[in-house]
């Protein structure tokens, strides 16, 4: 498998003098810069839109990294990841809507969503992880689409296609004064008002950070090594004495729970859930693109993939709009360059990437330093 090359770098680094490969350092540096930018995003990019993007990036890093646990580390292709994401988000949203804004609602609804995701993951895992990878991909795709239909049909609970809006706890509302100055107004730090919005952003950021750190820990643990062994050679792992199905089901459940937690964060930040933002197949495709662009089998790749994709989603549209205007006189071409068609070009890019750089940005970079030795 092509992604194998990304994971043997620690070994090759250990055989030479103890020196971290250059490519690996570069990846760490990029990730550190991104982390820094996200940590101070409200102060570095004070406008509202940039904050939306920053919060989305935080949540998606968790989501994509948890998907990487499956596809990159274990070699499981699941299309049900948005289903778990959606379960967490809808659980929180329904509780916040029916119980009113409060942390008890977030706790209760969030845990209900996470629990539902866990149970569903156990069921799907035990049912179909013992058969071929390809079979599993189909089963998850079918399950996810049924969940999508359910969410849009059970409109009494979920708000149907329109989704639903709700209030979040007062601490997180923009009107809340986190720090008051002498006059009783909202205090400002570097010109940024310290209101509930900041509190909410940091709650999302810190939770994402903790989840991301937890995943780094999982990957470095013995469990992580077993998962990679299963990916590389399933028969051999089984022969050594690891119960492959149990391990696969375990990581599938872990990834599902983390995805559901990411869904909780998303629901609290957005104050809205609907099929388009938490459950749609477009999000699944986004996750897939992000994990492949960033690099499968390197948790850090998720960070890079999410940032690159999120920025591309904004700038590619602008570029295409310019292109469509420039070619307006020609037939068909302006249709292909319409900003709405950006997914077309991302799809082409995706295919080329899978052909030529199957290890993704982080994987390719990391391999580079390792070969020099």
């Amino acid at each position, binding site marked *: 498998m*092509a992604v194998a090359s990304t994971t043997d770098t620690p070994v090759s680094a250990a055989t030479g003098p103890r020196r971290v490969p250059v490519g690996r350092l570069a990846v760490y540096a990029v990730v550190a810069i991104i982390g820094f930018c996200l940590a101070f995003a409200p102060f570095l990019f004070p406008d509202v839109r940039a904050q939306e993007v920053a919060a989305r990036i935080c949540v998606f890093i968790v989501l994509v990294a948890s998907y990487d646990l499956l596809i990159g580390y274990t070699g499981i292709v699941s299309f049900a990841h948005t289903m778990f994401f959606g379960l967490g988000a809808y659980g929180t949203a329904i509780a916040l809507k029916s119980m009113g804004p409060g942390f008890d609602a977030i706790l209760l609804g969030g845990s209900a969503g996470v629990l539902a995701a866990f149970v569903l993951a156990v069921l799907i895992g035990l049912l179909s992880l013992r058969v071929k990878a390809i079979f599993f*991909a189909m089963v998850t795709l*079918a399950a996810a689409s049924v969940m999508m239909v359910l969410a849009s049909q059970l409109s009494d609970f979920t708000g149907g296609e329109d989704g639903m809006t709700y209030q979040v706890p007062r601490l997180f509302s923009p009107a809340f004064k986190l720090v008051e100055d002498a006059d009783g107004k909202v205090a400002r730090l570097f010109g940024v008002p310290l209101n509930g919005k900041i509190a909410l952003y940091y709650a999302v950021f810190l939770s994402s950070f903790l989840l991301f750190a937890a995943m780094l820990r999982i990957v470095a643990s013995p469990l992580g090594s077993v998962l990679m062994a299963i990916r590389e050679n399933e028969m051999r792992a089984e022969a050594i004495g690891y119960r492959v199905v149990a391990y696969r089901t375990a990581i599938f459940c872990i990834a599902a729970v983390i995805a559901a937690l990411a869904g909780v964060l998303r629901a609290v930040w957005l104050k809205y859930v609907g099929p388009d933002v938490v459950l749609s197949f477009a999000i699944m*495709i986004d996750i897939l693109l992000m994990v492949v662009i960033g690099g499968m089998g390197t948790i850090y790749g998720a960070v890079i993939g999410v940032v690159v994709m999120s920025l591309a989603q904004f700038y590619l549209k602008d570029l295409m709009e310019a292109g469509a205007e420039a070619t307006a006189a020609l037939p068909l071409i302006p249709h*292909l360059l319409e900003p709405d068609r950006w*997914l077309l070009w991302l799809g*082409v890019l995706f*295919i080329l990437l*899978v*052909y030529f750089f199957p290890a993704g940005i982080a994987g390719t970079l990391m391999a580079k330093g390792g070969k020099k030795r």
Partner: protein
Amino acid sequence: MSTALERLGGVYLLPVLLAALAFVAIGSASTWTTLTVAGLAMGMMIFLMASGLSLIFGLMDVLNFGHSAFVSFGAFVAASVLAALSSWVSGGSALLNIVALLAAIGAATAFGAAGGWFFERVIVKPVYRDHLRQILITMGALIVAEQLILAVWGGAPIAVPRPAVLTGSIVIGDVPIEIYRIFAFLLGLAVYVAMYMILNNTRVGLLIRAGVENREMVEALGFRIDRLFIAVFMAGSALAAMGGAMWAGYQGLITPAIGPEMMILVFIVVIIGGLGSIQGSLLGAILVGLVANYVAFLAPKLSLASNMLLMMAILLWRPWGLKPAVRG
């Protein structure tokens, strides 16, 4: 007991059993007949789409997630041809009606075959034997194909004119049966018989069956298996496009969402039937068609999840599907 059941037809009895159960539950013979015919017609159209996917997987070990793109393309090409020939379609002459219909289905099928050739050469060939990249690449191709459909035909629903010959219904006893459903059923049956004959009575069919069972051995005996691959891929894609064209005529109104919608059903059929066998696909398709129609009548609220529940039940009973050609 089990051998006696096996001799009677084994899992092939399932649709009969299902129909009998539904008859008891529904209670009215005329309603039951209508639903059964509708279920069989739907099943046959899904069979057209699913058999190609299943065969491609069985022979080439390639699961084409872009398969539904051919369904969409078939539907839209057929709609365009029918719209272009609208004077023939709506005219009173039965001959012109049929010519227009055949032209539409033929154009869709030819487009599917050509698209299949391109798809196999450009998209799938470089990633044989690498499942992970296959899934990713065919998924990427699906995205591109869907966007192309949106760019060419737009996102608004398109009406598909149905030839005058096939509109209306015939009444048997007191049961009205739509002519289009009979036509769909007969076409599907014809395709199944043709496939069965080719697979079991010709040299090519022999090679394909041998390839499904053991690809390396066929190669070692000196046959050009890559030519076989491309032929099967083109045939499978053409069948998907034909199924899409039939489905477009059945629905009367199509949107670009037709592909993803059908893909789920097709996957469920292939999973139920077992990968790689056309008998399994037929069985799965008919089961799905019947269950969809019966449940929609008996318990409309359940209808959305019914196929999923059917799949779960069958997977619990037979994790490899009902009639798999390949295991492992």
